[in-house]
């Protein structure tokens, strides 16, 4: 396979990926009050990674991000289930969530909700799933 000339793609990707990733995290964390959340955040992160895989070849990305995305998906599911199980320790039914407001040093008055933990699980599962799927297909030659 001849080496394609994709300098522009490389250059754009290098700039775009951090922006997409930052935006993804923003989407994820704003999900509680504004549009966004685990699904969208996760998918956006996945698309950023997909762009990386498309622009550079898989081996290069693999070398730099040493994560098995199947494991990521599994961890996500596990986290989501554990937040559900966690409810039992507070004598609540499965997947009950709670929230409260705290005064944190830098952020000031901040709301912390257990639902966010669940959402992290969702996001991880979505990332793991999407990337595993795309990698599996593109690796198969």
């Amino acid at each position, binding site marked *: 396979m001849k080496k394609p000339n994709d300098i522009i793609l490389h250059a754009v990707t290098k700039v775009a990926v951090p922006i997409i990733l930052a935006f993804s995290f923003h989407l994820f964390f704003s999900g509680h009050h*504004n549009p966004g959340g685990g699904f969208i955040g996760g998918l956006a992160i996945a698309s950023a990674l997909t762009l990386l895989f498309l622009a550079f070849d898989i081996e290069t990305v693999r070398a730099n991000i040493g994560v098995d995305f*199947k494991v990521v998906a599994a961890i996500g599911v596990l986290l989501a289930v554990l937040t559900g199980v966690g409810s039992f320790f507070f004598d609540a039914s499965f997947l009950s969530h709670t929230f409260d407001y705290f005064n944190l040093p830098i952020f000031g008055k901040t709301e912390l909700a257990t639902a966010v933990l669940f959402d992290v699980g969702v996001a991880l599962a979505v990332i793991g799933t*999407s990337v595993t799927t795309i990698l*599996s297909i593109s690796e198969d030659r």
Partner: protein
Amino acid sequence: MSWLHTMIVIPFIFALFVPFLYKFFTPRIHTGWFVFIVPLLLFLSLLKYIPTIAEGKTVYHSVPWMPSLGINYTTYMDGLGLIFGLLITGIGTLVVLYSIYYMSKHRESLHNFYVYLLLFMGAMLGVVFTDNVLVLYVFWEMTSISSFLLIAYWYQRKKSRYGAQKSMLITIFGGLAMLAGFIMLSMITETYNLREMFNQVDVITAHSLFLPAMLLILLGAFTKSAQFPFSIWLPDAMEAPTPISAYLHSATMVKAGIYLVARFTPIFGGNAEWFWVISSIGLITLLYGSINAVKQTDLKALLAYSTISQLGLIMCLLGLGSAALYFGYGDEATVYAAAILAAIFHLINHSTFKGSLFMVVGIIDHETGTRDIRKLGGLMGLMPISFTLTIIGSFAMAGLPPFNGFLSKEMFFTGVLNASQMNIFSMDTFGLLFPTIAWISSVFTFIYCMILLFKTFAGRYQPSKLEKAAHEAPLGMLISPILLASLVILIFFFPNVLSHYLLQPALIAILPIFAESGGIDVKISAWHGWNTELFMTLGIVGLGTFMYIYLKKWSGVYGLFSQRWTLNAGYDFAIERMERFSEGFTNQYMTGFIRDYVVYIFAVLIVMLGGSLWLFDGIAMDVSNDAPISLYEGGVVVGMIIAAITVPLAKSRLTAIIAVGVLGYLVSMLFVIFRAPDLALTQLVVETVTVALFLLCFYHLPEFRKATVPMRFKLTNLIISIGVGVIVTIIALSANSTRLFEPISSYFENSYDLAGAKNIVNAILVDFRGIDTMLEIFVLTIASLGVYTLIKLRLAGRD
């Protein structure tokens, strides 16, 4: 759970352990030794009930099972159930003991054998001890299934599979008919419990469903008990290992039909139809079985036909005896009740002598390698114990003293003679038929008993035709038939002990009118003086001996009947035709082409949805609440339609993929318009990733080919798709126009107070309906694992 319940459950539970016992102890210990404990334990515990039952008491326990359906698991034991229980466990014990020597622990898959055997035992106990007709039905079919499994035990043999299928088809057919009969009965009486049905005999008799229910239940009984013309499955069932033939197909399972008839006599008895159907079918079966038995050359087939004939005898007696209920309590009833007593008596006797005969035939088969009487002969000196046992068994079967068969045969003759004197049910016209046919059948019975005995043991020993040199069986194998044969003699000398403890309580169970008087006082004795019955027996012996001696001269008569018109030929023809028809019919629509199946699905969708909308007048169109349309929105919709239409028309796959992508992005624009920011965002990202996926895969998939499909194919597709489109449009319009309920989403608008979230959609996803989301990510993960597996893991040997 009472002990009675536990008894039924024990075999099932023990069956679970059999495979492990087999695995760990084979070949050190024969698995049969473990199984042996179960029937022995059950038999001993049943013995404990005899005094209670003999006093006229019954045992009753009820456990709610499906209370909402009125199905209780009620167990009940009276004299009838007890006799069957003792037979099942008693013969079961002996059969298991026998099988330990019969079934080789080195060659046979004993775990299968004993699991099936225990399944049968539990099911059969369930049949005789349950009081709920639906539960009875379930156990009844379980006996059919275990019988099927046991006949097909040597499933490598074609004949085993054939016999198993035959028995399954016939008995399950009867079982289903019986279920229909049960349901009719429960419709009439509004109960599933037999005890409660017995209290409503008048209601049942007056009901228009009386006759259908009766005939359907009898169909179940006749198929199970191999009555003419359903008897054809029993000879083929002889492919089962001999312990099974001795147990299921002579001593217990085939008697389930007898049990059923006896059990339902209190409800149906005393009616002309019941009387005639049972006694005539029984009589025909008796004659058919005995005549056919004479021409058999395989010992087991001979015994199978003899079993059919003896079952017919018992059935006939039950039919005749049911007349007692017509008269009500009195002298006449007592006369006919004697027939019932004879039936139960013969039932027990038959189990003893036929059980021992089967075991002896098994021994002969085991020790010589054949069951063909043309090859056997002269075994008298080589197998003296087996010879003695056969004498006892076959003389008892022929109705000779001093064996128990003599007593019940005499009582049978008394029954038919009494019946011929009857002046009800138009018996004055046909009455004489009964003793005549009974006598002819008994002559044939005598002949085949002699064939069984002398063709095997007398005559010339032909070692050249045998697979192995004949010798006497090991002691362990002989114990069971010896025990049974000694019972045959014991019962002859002490019939009244049996009568007092077992027969009388069973009689009361069948004919409840005798309950107050404590049964009838019939003394069973061997000598009644020079009466008609004795002369009949003497005649049988005389003519039978004569005919046996000149058997060769007249047996050519059998050849006169064409083999084309036998019951078996009819059955085979029907099965073959049905198989061919169903194969042809299935191949008509099961084309293996997925598109056809999708067509069925969509066609059903159109018909069901369209039809129900039409039927329930659900079509409505109301545009008054519609939101206004702006030009911009209209443009998006038009764009979507154009994009969608492009897809099927596209010449290249790239165009099609891009058109679908455009559609997806336009959908996300619609989401924006419809105030769904979360959806729009998700749709955008998903669409991007999906298009990437499509392009990745499309890299591998082939280019669209020129459509070379016939016009009809396209037209069908077009019609189906237009139909689906129209139906969906109508549904959408109608649903939009008929709003039956208030939306429930006002609750979710409290999300800030309830979940601390201002994004309602997200609150629903992670909090209100968190389990949905959790399961969704399960699905996601499973799908990705599926993708991974499809790509990475390949079956060995493939590409």
